[in-house]
């Protein structure tokens, strides 16, 4: 009996010790892997990192590392797809069947809002952080506003009727749909607010962040899409009569706009800073890629995926007007791979002779054929979202729309001069005679200078070329994919179907 008593006593003791060691607070285990959200957004450094994470969205596949080029370049009449991946190709020719198609639609939508969420976090949290220098705080907020505006600008171009989300999200948010006009207004507001706190130029370590000029460039684009020509002129005056005067110039060699060799040059108004330092994937993991996949997807067959290529009419467009010295416009040499490239300029294609069909062409801009014979997912060339040549052509277009056609011409001439073309007054006097004729000339000048630079879809929309069946059929002569184009429908993408189904506040775009 005594033995039993001792046993029970010692057992109870053991249990007590054990239970005490297992106090209930042991159930709270700190996550040793990473910061919690509650610990973050406290310091200036946190603010800077939060902002940088928003920049990192440029590297995501739905945006500027891959698929957005399919929407902007291939859907337009400049590009098309002969991809054996039929569904992928269908999404460049207005055959939208499954609106949930990830690569064609959903990933770009997802990454757009992912980027906006990152901007919104900065905009919600940074004002609450104490900064030694309040100007720095304002600059961070202004950059986030610029980036948010940039993403809404492209969302407006692609889907038009998108929800506007302006605060850091909660899981159960089901935001309301906005009209295109409301989205444009939000972009204008963000840009206007951003401009006040952004510098004219950045110091060397911060080159690549948006300047007042970058803001004005996007503001002008936003206003021009709405055909608010007066306001657009005011926005662009910055470069010619405002603080931005003499801050920008065309680089002497056209090709320096597309390689990794002369990035952030005098022609650059805003560019995405790509790098090949990381070789990881495109998720949010360590070593995530900071590179552009575009050349791997756009390189000719057997070099890259060749999911996108250029329409052949572009080659002919370059050859319409010989240079002053009687040669071929050198911009062609750095814009396209085409059958006569070797004959015309002596350049091979990734070290190869032309081995493709005689009516085919590919985009050479941003390719790395200038120093290697293949491609991969890690192109490091910065992507120039706005360069000064575009500003000049935009300004000319705006002035022409305001009936200042003769004032407009010299800005076009600057661009032409670099390509060794005579001024418009000499080469195309008729173009100066009417607003319409000048507009038609601008259309040509823009495609020769900017083709393959993701501006064509906005151009076609702005020019009204997609608004009537008659005009669309003209576009279709250059790009037969437009034979599938239904006026009033395909001018915007369908919203991802699951978004519409899972958010009762959204209505699918018309006719879809």
């Amino acid at each position, binding site marked *: 009996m005594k033995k*039993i008593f001792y046993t*029970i006593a010692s*057992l109870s003791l053991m249990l007590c010790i*054990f239970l005490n060691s297992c106090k*209930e607070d*042991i159930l*709270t*285990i700190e996550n040793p*892997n*990473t*910061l*919690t*959200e509650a610990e*973050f957004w406290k310091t200036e450094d946190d603010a800077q990192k939060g902002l*940088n*994470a*928003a920049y*990192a969205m440029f*590297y995501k596949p739905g945006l500027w590392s891959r698929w957005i080029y399919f929407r902007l370049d291939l859907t337009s009449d400049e590009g098309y797809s002969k991809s*054996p991946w*039929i*569904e992928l190709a*269908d999404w460049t020719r207005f*055959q939208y069947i*499954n609106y949930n198609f990830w690569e064609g639609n959903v990933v770009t939508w997802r990454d757009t*809002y*992912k*980027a906006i*969420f*990152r901007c*919104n*976090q900065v905009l919600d949290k940074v004002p609450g952080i104490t900064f030694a220098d309040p100007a720095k705080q304002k600059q961070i907020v202004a950059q986030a506003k610029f980036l948010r505006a940039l993403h809404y600008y492209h969302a407006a171009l692609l889907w038009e009727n998108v929800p506007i*989300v302006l605060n850091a*999200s909660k*899981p*159960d*948010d*089901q935001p309301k749909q906005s009209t295109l006009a409301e989205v444009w207004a939000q972009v204008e507001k963000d840009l206007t607010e951003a401009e006040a706190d952004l510098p004219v130029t950045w110091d*060397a*370590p911060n*080159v*690549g962040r948006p300047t007042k000029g970058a803001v004005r460039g996007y503001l002008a684009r936003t206003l021009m899409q709405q055909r608010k020509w007066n306001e657009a002129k005011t926005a662009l005056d910055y470069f010619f009569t405002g603080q931005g005067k003499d801050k920008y110039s065309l680089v002497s060699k056209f090709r320096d706009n597309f390689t990794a060799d002369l990035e952030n040059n005098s022609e650059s108004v805003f560019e995405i*800073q*790509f*790098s090949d*330092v990381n*070789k990881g994937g495109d998720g949010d993991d*360590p*070593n995530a890629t*900071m590179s552009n996949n575009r050349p791997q997807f756009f390189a000719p067959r057997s*070099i*890259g995926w*060749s999911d996108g290529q250029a329409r052949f009419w572009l080659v002919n467009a370059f050859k319409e007007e010989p240079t002053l010295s009687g040669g071929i416009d050198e911009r062609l040499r750095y814009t396209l791979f085409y059958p006569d490239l070797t004959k015309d300029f002596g350049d091979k294609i990734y070290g190869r002779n032309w081995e493709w069909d005689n009516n085919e062409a590919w985009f050479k801009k941003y390719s790395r054929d200038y120093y290697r014979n293949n*491609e*991969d*997912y890690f192109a490091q060339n910065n992507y120039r979202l706005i360069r000064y040549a575009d500003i000049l052509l935009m300004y000319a277009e705006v002035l022409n729309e305001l009936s200042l056609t003769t004032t407009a011409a010299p800005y076009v001439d600057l661009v032409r001069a670099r390509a060794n073309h005579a001024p418009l007054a000499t080469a195309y006097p008729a173009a100066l005679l009417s607003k319409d004729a000048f507009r038609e000339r601008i259309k040509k000048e823009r495609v020769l200078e900017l083709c393959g630079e993701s501006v064509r879809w906005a151009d076609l929309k702005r020019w009204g070329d997609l608004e009537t069946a008659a005009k669309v059929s003209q576009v279709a002569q250059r790009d037969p994919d437009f034979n599938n184009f239904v006026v009033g429908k395909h001018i915007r993408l369908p919203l991802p*179907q*699951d978004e519409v189904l*899972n958010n009762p506040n959204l209505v699918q775009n018309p006719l*879809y």
Partner: protein
Amino acid sequence: MNVSLFLQSKGGNRSWHPTKDNQSNIRVSWTMLLILFQLFINLIAGAQQLTSVSGTVTDVKGEKLIGVSVKVKGTNRGGSTDSNGRYSLNAVDANSTLVFTYVGFSTLEVPVNGRSRVDVKLQDQTTELSQVVVVGYGTQQKKDLTGAVSVVKSADIQKRQATTVAEAMQGLASGVNIRGGGQPGSEAQIQIRGLKNLSNTNPLYVIDGMITTANRDFNPNDIESLQILKDASAAAIYGSRAANGVIIITTKQGKEGPMKVDFSGKSSIQTIPRYDLAGTEEFSRLNFMAYDNAGATRQNLNTEINTNWQDEAFRTGNIQDYNLSFSGGSKNGGYMVSTNYYGNKGTVIDTKFDRLSFRVNTRGSKGIFSIGENLAISNAKADEMSGNPIIDVVRLLPTIPVFDPANPGGYGYGSESRARTFGTNPVAIADLEDRTNENLRIRGNIWSELGILKSLKYRLNVGYETSNDHYNYLRKKGNWTLNQPADPTIVNENRAGSSNALIENTLTFNKQFQKHKVTLLAGQTYQNQKYQQIWGTKRNLVPNSNGSYYTQLDQGNEPQTGGFIQKAILLSYLGRAEYSFADKYLLNAVFRRDGTSRLNEKNQWGNFPSFSAAWRLSEEPFFKNSLVNDLKLRASWGKLGSSNIGYWDYLATINNFSTIAMGQDQHIEAGATQVKLVNNDLRWETLAQTNIGLDASLLQNRFSFSAEYFIADTKDVLTGMPIALTTGNDGGNPLVNAASLKNSGFEFSGTYRQHKKDLDFSVTANLTTLKNKVTNLGYGRSKIFVGNTVTELGQPIGMWYVLETDGLFQTPEEVNDYKNEQGKIIQPNAKPGDIRFKDNNGDGQITNADKSVVAKSNPDYQLGLNFNVSFKRVSFNMDWFGAFGSTIFNGPRSVTDRFDDNSNYRAGIQPWTPENPDTSVPRAYYGSTLNSRGDTDRWLEDGSFLRLKYVSLAYALPASTIKRVGLANASISLSAQNILTFTKYTGLDPEFSNGSIYEKGYDFGAFPNVRMISLGLQLGF
């Protein structure tokens, strides 16, 4: 008489024990004395005719049973069988009856009738009502169960050739649905009583008291018993982790007696089911047709080549499974040592799985103290599959050669001019990508028990499991698909370790007061789980001289590393009260309180009670029925929980991994932000389950059955419910206590057995029906759309939601006549041979708005049938399994039956042509997805099937033969698995698994169950 009874109960049993060697002389003389005494008593008691009786006790297969207790009925006299299964009793009344009892077997009573030799066969009783069932922190007899528990015979598991326990269980228990892997080393999915949540269906495994998983590291040959706790009252003792059911496994222990050596060896060959695909002649004819119809220039197909990609990617696999065990013990202890090698060469090239495992189970006792341990060590290594050959063999064209020296790496694949496909060459990817996964696992527990009082027992159970995991990935140089980027060589290696520690203290009180039987259990447990991984990657490896590379991480450049930790703790208090009165009225109450580290502080604790009762009508005096031997009604209600979620899902974290290039020098700066949204106030998911059951045994126990009806309501289901992408969330949908689900079902399991002289016959059938309904969805939703499914309130999860097809247009007139009410032509661009879709919303065009719910994906009922016949030394066994009423989306057929994109075609496919209009396949048309869109009912098929899962013929060698070579028993068997299936499904296998909760019925090219033929040998020494 009383005197002799008293004396015998003091020492008689022990002294009658036949293990002669270890009996002391004193005990032998005790025995002599007792026999004399007994004789004397018998003599004076009257005129009895005495005889001596001897014989052999075997099981139905003729295997000798050692240690069977043999008693003379009505006395305490008796003995037990020796190592040859023999017994002999002296001075037995010639008219008495012998009672044979043995653990795990039915008790048998045989009248002596004056014979001197009585040989008996004992019936294995594992499906009978009187068996002992492990119910978690204790055992109960099946007749005393008040909850729903299924018991699977270990022999039924071990007879099949399977990597994991789960795979071997299909069709053996009602209410349990298993979908197995098929690939070497792959693990099966188990679903007990339907989808009760939206995250995970795997049950909790308890192996010898250790809470763990019976993954591929676990050797199924070690199983002694397996029980499945299905309802809330049975599973409630495991509280918060029991919502998906609990599978309790007890491993083999050494039994009293001299050492037994058992060897079993199985050798199997495996084949994979195949598609019937076009060869070059048929392919090129159809391909040209598709191009011609589209007005496209034909591709320059290489018709010289006729590659059968299935021959290239698939092969005959095999399995070698050898098991050797040693066991034995004495009254006070036992040991069991087993070792197993399991090797599987996969049916897909370059895949294999190897497992070496080792187990030692021992136990011992002295006085009131006993102690034991179970320890298993295993090393498993899988050479994993790269790509998905099940789809690759369909996507590649027969005109593509396997090898093509012109391509980097030397393999053939698509070409722009000759074969426009991005299909992956399975031979290339198998060679160019190497993945191996190796785990060394040590799993075991030590327990000790102290019988403090006769009725009070304290038990301490300390379990520990640790693993050492090693994953290796090598990417060699070369391509496997058209236009692939120039990837450098890459090596990625990760090393990880896990640990799982469990400490349990339980006190059990057990007492019988006359007709009242009470068992009380109280306990406290603590479990700590941890996983830690580090990884590294390098590129541009140095080639070695034999065509591969130096793959150590020292080599190469562009290093990347990473690592992370996961930790969780569960703290619990538990209690159970069992009460029975006269074996008639049974009551059972369970309570468990669990605290988890996986939820935030406010919501960490959850309470999980359950109550159950049973009434054995057959014990009532008014119930006198010669047909019915046993009849019991059961009812239970209980609450279970689930926090089957990630480690810190309630905690919003900052992702520090972004980097950006910035500045004139393009330097790198760090970024940090919240990527994944989080719901901080996550709570326990709770499941309330009601179960009504009936157990009966009829016709002298020849027929027994159990029937159950259950209703399970899950509330606050923790799920990553899809949220709007406009939130900007990434990294998976945040968990939320969103939905409520209701499952109800009926389960029946019945066995009929007959024993006639040399013939034994038994048949078991089990039937499961299941209804699943969503009663509430989170975020105020009424529907969730995932892929081609919709999940709606009041409906089962994952209904098929697609466009409806309505045959093909035969003429241009039919196209023009197909109008809506306003007279608008619905498909104006259609041509004869195109699919006619139903314009369900009548708006005159075909859009996503025309989609409708057309079918559910889960089966209405499933059926398992097991037949056993044995005649003398030959036994025949058959297991059937079927599921009926399901609808499957045939993903591979949506590839083989499309003409818009280049992939191989189904052999014999007849696309519509003006000459051949009588077909359901639309015209072949290259380059437009319209006729082959993936979101239509064209790909839905009846998924019902009935399958012969297992069939075997076994022969036990006659004792006279094997004795000469020193064997105690020997048998050989020939068996086959999955060799016969009745189904209308045209895919490879209707019995596949898809990990997505919403798309369970979507066959994405899932790995099929392989066919197998095995030869087995079993030897006992």
